[in-house]
């Protein structure tokens, strides 16, 4: 788990403005309460819904349990989200994508691991293609056990997350979140799975390909180049052209 607390940025530009004026700095407490209230009740969710738990997440977002009443709107873009709910099995093929999307989310951000597969891999953990829990890739704030958890359990997890956000913003210590099955915390280290050298059969090139969203290369036919004008100046230009790659940016900077 082990969230680096220095990475969690709660600074707001409003604080600097208030502290600049004597007398107004007393208002920072009130402003902080408002910001905490706002952060707690507008946790926009980025659903990393891969499998069964995603259906229960949809049920939680639907009419009976209704996550919307906590201000939690489901967003399709990581850049607009505060909270990632990892719902479902994460495979080796999917884990780099999850990591990339997590890196695209703005701070402060939170993560909920929903269901046994996201926590530990469940009974797929020994399978060659499944990673044993999402917390080996990204830090997890709240674990919700179950296969799959009920929507009510997801709601309880959201409430636990709110308490955690309250403590963090107040600068207080909050108990570290442990894996429900082992009672231990774990460092996120996706390199442990995807490190070059871990398996001799995996080459660095294969890793690069796995870590990047490789598209199949499309070799379009080259467009016909315009024929050079048959003048003396153009001929002089073409003779100088091979020298250009040696100093590619020289002309632009001058």
């Amino acid at each position, binding site marked *: 788990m082990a969230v680096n607390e220095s990475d969690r940025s709660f600074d707001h530009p409003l604080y600097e403005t208030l502290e600049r004026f004597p007398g107004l700095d007393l208002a920072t407490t009130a402003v902080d309460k408002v910001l905490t209230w706002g952060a707690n009740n507008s946790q926009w969710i980025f*659903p*990393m*819904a*891969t*499998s*069964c738990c*995603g*259906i*229960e997440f*949809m*049920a939680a977002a*639907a*009419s*009976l349990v209704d996550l919307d009443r906590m201000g939690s709107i*489901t967003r*399709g873009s990581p850049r607009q989200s505060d909270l990632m709910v990892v719902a*479902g*099995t994460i*495979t080796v*093929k*999917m884990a780099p*994508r*999850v990591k990339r*999307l997590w890196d695209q989310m703005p701070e402060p951000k939170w993560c909920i691991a929903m269901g046994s597969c996201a926590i530990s891999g469940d*009974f*797929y953990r020994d*399978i*060659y*293609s*499944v990673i044993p829990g999402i917390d080996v890739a990204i830090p997890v704030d709240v674990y919700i056990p179950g*296969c*799959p958890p*009920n929507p009510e359990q997801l709601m309880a997890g959201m409430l636990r997350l709110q308490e955690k956000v309250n403590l963090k913003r107040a600068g207080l210590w909050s108990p570290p979140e442990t894996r429900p099955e082992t009672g231990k915390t774990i460092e996120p280290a996706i390199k442990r799975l995807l490190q070059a050298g871990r398996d001799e059969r995996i080459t660095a090139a294969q890793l690069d390909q796995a870590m990047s*969203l490789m*598209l*199949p290369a*499309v*070799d*379009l*036919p080259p*467009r016909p180049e315009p024929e050079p004008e048959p003048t003396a100046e153009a001929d002089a230009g073409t003779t100088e052209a091979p020298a250009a790659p040696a100093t590619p940016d020289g002309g632009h900077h001058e």
Partner: protein
Amino acid sequence: MTPVALARAPWPDPYLNVDDYDPEADLMVINLGPQHPSTHGVFRVVLYLDGEIIIKAIPHPGYLHRGVEKLCEKLTYAQITPIVDKNDYVAPMLNEQAVNMAFEKMLGVEVPLRARYMRTILAEIQRVASHLLWLGTFAMDLGGALGGGTSVFMYCFRERESILNLFEDLTGCRFHYNTHTVGGQRHDIPAGWAAKVHQTLEAISQRIPEYETMLEHPIFVRRTKGVGVIDADLALELGLTGPLLRASGVDHDLRRDAPYHIYDQLKDLAVAVESEGDCMARYKVRVKELRESIRIARMLIDNVPEGPISGGRPIKQPGQFKAKGGQVYVGIETPRGELGTYLIAGGGKMGDTPYRLKIRPPSLHALACVPYVFPGHSLSDAVAILGSLDPIMGEVDR
């Protein structure tokens, strides 16, 4: 939007070389997925666009490959049921039934009549829940998460919750039930359950006309009519089954053509067939199946005979069932089509595990038509077509 004819017959070549299309065109490559709200799971399609028109689509499944078939080779027959629940997580009841029917056929276990009635009823109620979830998510694909599609999504999930409550009363779980065993059922019908089924299904059948009224909206019609046409030849060529095949005009339903459970006693089973083959036809077929499933379940729930629910002895040790060898195939009709289970017995030292368990998922074959159907449509229609195929990635990748 009416698809653009790409002047290729009889259907577009999925292995079309992009270079042959138009050297002067500025092709745009769009990566739809793997994490996209309307891909119904983790499914990735690489789309080559000429303007707004798709000229080539390459599907990339495999982001949820969990090695289920390999895992099943380690487990005994009684242990496999909760594993296959997770394959098609929208209709887990039918996954359990498929593997257990294969095991019963292999091991020669007789299923009592009461259990067969219960299986039929559970299958039909599960079909209603699955189609309701499809209807809600399909409307959300078309209307957008914050657009008008959310209304249908909310209503459909309200009905689905009431069905999940029925299953919770019976098995104790909302899904992943583990209620089928080799030779029968694990949980008997609780007292007062039949009345509850009647009440729930009656409420749903009264509300289906409301959804149809909502979905008669001109925008819905324009986004589904004539979009994503799969003709019967292509459907048969690709091995499509279920509502996709019936929407293309092929009258094929395993419940009637190769009956199992007690479907052979249902002489008046109406099979919904449409001939257009577009998204609207698939929608119509599924809504008709909703009504038919409700009718069958309500008709059977009053006639469940008394008797035991399990034929064999109660399972006390995992390796109770053993088979030396042999192979069977069992296909049943799930909400998405034919779910086949091909079992070769004789694995393990004692012969108590499968040597090989091959699952034939209907969604995998449904996704096979993506490179044939997408070209010629606009990007927004691709989402509508993908939604109408109703793929479940858990059973595609397994």
